[in-house]
């Protein structure tokens, strides 16, 4: 089952994991996984969501205890009961969600939890020390800056600095690029290379194939808790090969999309103004429309009003001016229920905090929009038999992996939870659907599943508004794409049918950075470079 390493120059092993077993409810997250990390390499750990990558690394970082198996660091068996034990052996992990205190400075965050300094902080002295460590590895951060003042990329550097300051030799990066902008990703790669050149080793968890081939020396792949490849040199591997090892079949990168046949106007957003939670203008005279049987994309850098747009459409946020109409009925500034009762489905971007109730069962979660109507509701009472039947049907139809429909959804993985939400929204046979970042944080297989479901909606004649930050996703699914920038639509491009060419992508890129479409046409494509 395992492809072994071809004979590359043998560097000593920095970490060796043998036969690691870890279970979670109903899931064997790691099934006798072997993993080897050589000193001075960048080793990518590839796998779908829920394949067990993070679990394996959390075991190595001392956050979880393995149920079986051994860990050796530089050839010596070790036992970790806490991250503190792991860092003593030189293993540090940078998590996807940073663990920093926003109101404190970089130095204070780096020193947090250390025995030295003992009582007086003597910050200037330690500022210098922290700066020196940063200098050595090319991590440019001002030690006196407060965390809240830093960009996400800089915060990630602080996390790295924390680990390096503690003397980590092995750095585990859990999907470090997920939160970064493209140019920040290049910066991170430079830092990783500079750390390698100074004898550190890096484990790079990812499910993005192009990054893995760009940065890693060797790749290990996990699929459903089993290692399908250990330490394959990334130079020789093609993207298709790695994808196959990851998902167990050839991923179809191109979706077969039938030509569109747009029908009646379904969603009509006219000149909408709205504020964000802080009372600042988020939408400023935004207009767009979606017809039946088409997928319309909204492209843009995060935080340009996408969330507010979806909330105004679904009635969760008031708009100050303008109106939203659904098949001719006014839906803006009305309650959410009106939209739900008029065939509007909504896949929110935050599946844990908006899209689901974590402690309620799968059944309770799938009836969230159906509990008002028969067969679930009978004269004000719930027919639990009918609800359970529905949940079981959806569980089978949408391939939701869960021990039972009475399981609370907080125990589900991200991909499974998204399937619960999609199952609920799609089974209501909506005439219109807003999907916000429906594939964020999902693995290749799950993303493909979501894409197929969205295309099926389009073919069934529903209107779909797809708000996403993944340009590739928008271009492969949408018939038209609007580009949003600071709460306004910069322009609209047609993509349906044709292979997106470079000039189209360049145009969208220009609009995403604030150049309106008319101006681009006036100046000619490529004028800005």
């Amino acid at each position, binding site marked *: 089952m395992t492809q072994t390493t071809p004979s590359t120059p043998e560097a000593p092993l920095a970490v060796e994991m043998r036969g690691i077993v870890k279970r979670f409810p109903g899931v064997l997250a790691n099934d006798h996984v072997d993993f080897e990390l050589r000193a001075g390499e960048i080793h990518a750990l590839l796998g779908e969501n829920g394949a067990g990558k993070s679990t394996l690394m959390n075991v190595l970082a001392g956050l979880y*205890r393995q149920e*079986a198996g051994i860990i050796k660091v530089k050839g010596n068996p070790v036992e970790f009961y806490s991250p503190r034990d792991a860092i003593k052996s030189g293993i540090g992990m940078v998590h996807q969600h940073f663990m920093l205190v926003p109101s404190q400075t970089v130095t204070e965050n780096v020193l947090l939890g250390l025995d030295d300094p003992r009582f007086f902080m003597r910050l200037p002295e330690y500022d210098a020390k922290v700066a020196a460590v940063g200098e050595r590895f090319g991590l440019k951060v001002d030690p006196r800056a407060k965390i809240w003042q830093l960009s996400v990329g800089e915060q990630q550097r602080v996390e790295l600095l924390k680990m390096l300051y503690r003397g980590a030799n092995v750095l585990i990066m859990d999907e470090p690029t997920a939160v970064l902008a493209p140019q920040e990703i290049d910066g991170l790669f430079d830092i990783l290379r500079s750390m390698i050149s100074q004898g550190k080793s890096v484990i790079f968890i990812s499910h993005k194939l192009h990054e893995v081939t760009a940065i890693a020396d060797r790749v290990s792949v996990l699929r459903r808790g089993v290692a399908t490849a250990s330490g394959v040199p990334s130079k020789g591997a093609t993207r298709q090969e790695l994808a196959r090892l990851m998902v167990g079949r050839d991923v179809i990168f191109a979706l077969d999309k039938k030509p569109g046949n747009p029908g009646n106007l379904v969603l009509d957003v006219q000149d909408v103004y709205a504020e964000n939670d802080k009372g600042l203008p988020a939408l400023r005279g935004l207009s767009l429309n979606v017809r039946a049987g088409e997928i319309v994309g909204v492209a843009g850098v995060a935080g340009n009003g996408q969330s507010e747009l979806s909330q105004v459409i679904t009635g969760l946020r008031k708009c100050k001016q303008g109106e939203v109409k659904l098949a001719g009925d006014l839906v803006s500034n009305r309650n959410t229920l009106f939209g739900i009762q008029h065939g509007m489905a909504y896949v929110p971007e935050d599946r844990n905090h908006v899209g689901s109730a974590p402690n309620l069962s799968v059944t309770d979660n799938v009836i969230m929009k159906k509990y008002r109507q028969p067969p679930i509701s009978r004269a004000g*009472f719930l027919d*639990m038999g009918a609800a359970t039947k529905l949940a079981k049907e959806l569980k089978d139809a949408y391939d939701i992996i869960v021990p039972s429909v009475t399981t609370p959804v907080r125990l589900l993985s991200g991909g499974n939870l998204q399937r619960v939400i999609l199952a609920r929204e799609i089974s209501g046979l909506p005439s219109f659907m807003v999907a916000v970042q429906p594939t964020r944080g999902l693995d290749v297989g799950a993303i493909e599943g979501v894409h197929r479901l969205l295309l099926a909606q389009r073919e069934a004649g529903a209107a779909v508004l797809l708000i996403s930050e993944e340009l590739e996703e928008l271009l492969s699914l949408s018939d038209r794409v609007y580009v949003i920038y600071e709460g306004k639509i910069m322009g609209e491009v047609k993509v349906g049918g044709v292979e997106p060419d470079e000039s189209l992508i360049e145009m969208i890129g220009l609009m995403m950075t604030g150049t309106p479409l008319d101006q681009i046409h006036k100046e000619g494509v490529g004028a800005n470079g």
Partner: protein
Amino acid sequence: MAESTSVQKKRAGFKIRVEPRLEEPAAWYPLAVSLGAIVVALILGGILISFAGGDPLKSYQHIAKASFGDTGVLSDTIVKATPILLAALACSVAFRMKLWNIGAEGQFIMGAFGASAVVLAPLLAEDTPRWLFLTVMVLAAMAAGAIWGFIPGYLKAKFNVNEIISTLMMNYIAIAWINFWIFGVWSEGGFQMSPKFPNNAWLPRLLEYAKEYPALRGLTTHAGLLLGIVAAIILWIIVYRSRWGYEIRLIGDNPQAAKYAGINITSNVIYVMMLSGALAGLGGMSEVSGVVHRLQTAPIAAGYGFTGIIVAWLAKLNPLVIIVVSVLFGALILAGREIQPSGVPKMIQGIILVSLIASDFLLRYRIRIVRADAEE
């Protein structure tokens, strides 16, 4: 996964490992843990009793006898349990929606006032048929309690006033309110109590049927128990089997998801506080019409609303479990009167409470003892 993948140096000893529980435990497990906690508490209490110079076994026997020993004391236990039951039901429905109603005490008192007003105002003549009298008293009590719940509920819904503070403060207003009536308007010859209610306004008690069934002689268990059990069953159906209950559970677990599902949170806050108040008010009616038979501050404002908070938590907000836990609490209160020195039962009560609350840990975490040399 007992298969060992490595042979290592053997080291002696055992290690205790605490791990978060990621699976739902089996259905019998929470019950077993609770019973275990009570056993542990009784052992600890036994040690305490022997320090105080008593014989733990004998004391426990006496406590058991004093609260469950014969039909007489069992009946007394149930009389004590009834107001706790209704107050705990009131708390449970509000807590289910994460509305921290600390005001069951005040709503209970206002319920007692509402029921008394029917008799004392008087809204109904003294010779009104008993069924009508009691029905009107029940309705008046529930309405009074609901109003006392509505005020903090409305303030919470409209102005986001913290319900913990407002409900707590309204308890004191309720006490002052009934004091005003019994000191002044309805005072029984200057005493701080109202005149006794006519028999038509008393909830039926078992002893009334002693003529037909001599075994019932002297038993003071009253129909309030029936009200409590029926209320518990109805509340269970509302919470777990009705549309409204689904909304309550959804709001309680994730208000954002509830909004997303098109549920109006504001009106539900008000309705649930009113239901909570009405249940506590019913408790007040049951106590005033089933036990005290007059409006009087001390026996009505006896802290049942506060005990209800604890009982609701211990029963994990499940209305049917609340019935059982209320009876246990009734027994503890009763035993408290029987045992000397009088501090001991209070302490045992405290130990049981702490043990039960601590045992919750075992539901969320599991403890595994492993051999130190084992890699499993």
